[in-house]
């Protein structure tokens, strides 16, 4: 696609030619937006090295990273898929509760702290992955670095 986002798009072009056989296959991630948002910090915790590697490759080959970073991209996808698979096998109920809450609340993370703390506890127990926000300045809460008595969403029933 070109850089400009098409404004007057009248049709779509779908190309169903598969990838050439010499390029290794990777199964794409099937999680949609709410589960990905829910699992983002755990993906970031386990796959930080792969993610950084991929983005570094993209930055270094400026302009043609699409073809050269396929290997790093496959690693990123496999790692993220492994995280989602692990969460699905170990913490499915908490995970489902959290992303359904997110889906109902416009993907705003602060509306779903109760489900999130359950999910964080379960994932830390079973998988050892922790949610940390880099550069957060507010110290009190250990897992999310959000104040203990938040001002926002204080009246919603979903809180803590």
């Amino acid at each position, binding site marked *: *696609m*070109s*850089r400009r986002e098409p404004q007057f798009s009248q*049709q779509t*072009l779908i*190309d169903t*030619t*598969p*990838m*050439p056989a010499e*390029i290794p296959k*990777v199964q*794409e*991630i099937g999680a949609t937006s709410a589960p*990905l*948002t829910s699992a*983002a*910090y755990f*993906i*970031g915790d386990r*796959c930080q090295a*792969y*993610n950084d590697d*991929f*983005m570094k490759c*993209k930055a270094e080959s400026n*302009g*043609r*990273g*699409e*073809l050269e*970073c*396929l290997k*790093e*991209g*496959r690693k*990123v*996808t496999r790692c*993220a898929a492994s995280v989602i698979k692990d969460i699905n096998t170990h913490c499915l109920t908490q995970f489902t509760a959290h992303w359904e809450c997110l889906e109902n609340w416009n993907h705003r*993370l*602060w509306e779903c702290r109760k489900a999130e703390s359950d999910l964080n506890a379960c994932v830390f127990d079973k998988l050892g992955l922790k949610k940390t*926000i*880099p*550069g*957060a*300045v*507010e110290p009190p809460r250990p897992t*999310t*670095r*959000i*104040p203990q008595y*938040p*001002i*926002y969403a204080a009246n919603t029933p979903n809180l803590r």
Partner: protein
Amino acid sequence: MPQDMPPVGGYSPVQYKRNIPARGFRPVHYLIGMHLVMAFGYYKLFYAVREQHELAREKLWGRLHILPLLQAEEDRDQARRYYADKAREKELFGTDNKVYHSDRFVRPTFMYTPSKVTQ
């Protein structure tokens, strides 16, 4: 001739003030109270803004963590279509010909589309 003179002892004072008692507190107390309420509001606002910054940071880093996998997915799609286009050109022309005078990957601006679109 007798002349009109003020009465003996002068005129009685004219009442120009209204004789109504002042209600409520003293005005300075209202001023102080208003400033206290405002100060409390700004105190809460200070922490609310700080919390909003943290929430924005949380959202940003959540997106940053899932951005590489989405980008990798998109890049694979671009590469797949690039190779498919190259193969089609090879089949049509018989040779590898390059549109641009470089080996760079360029996202296509113009595409040939099927002449009959079935929607």
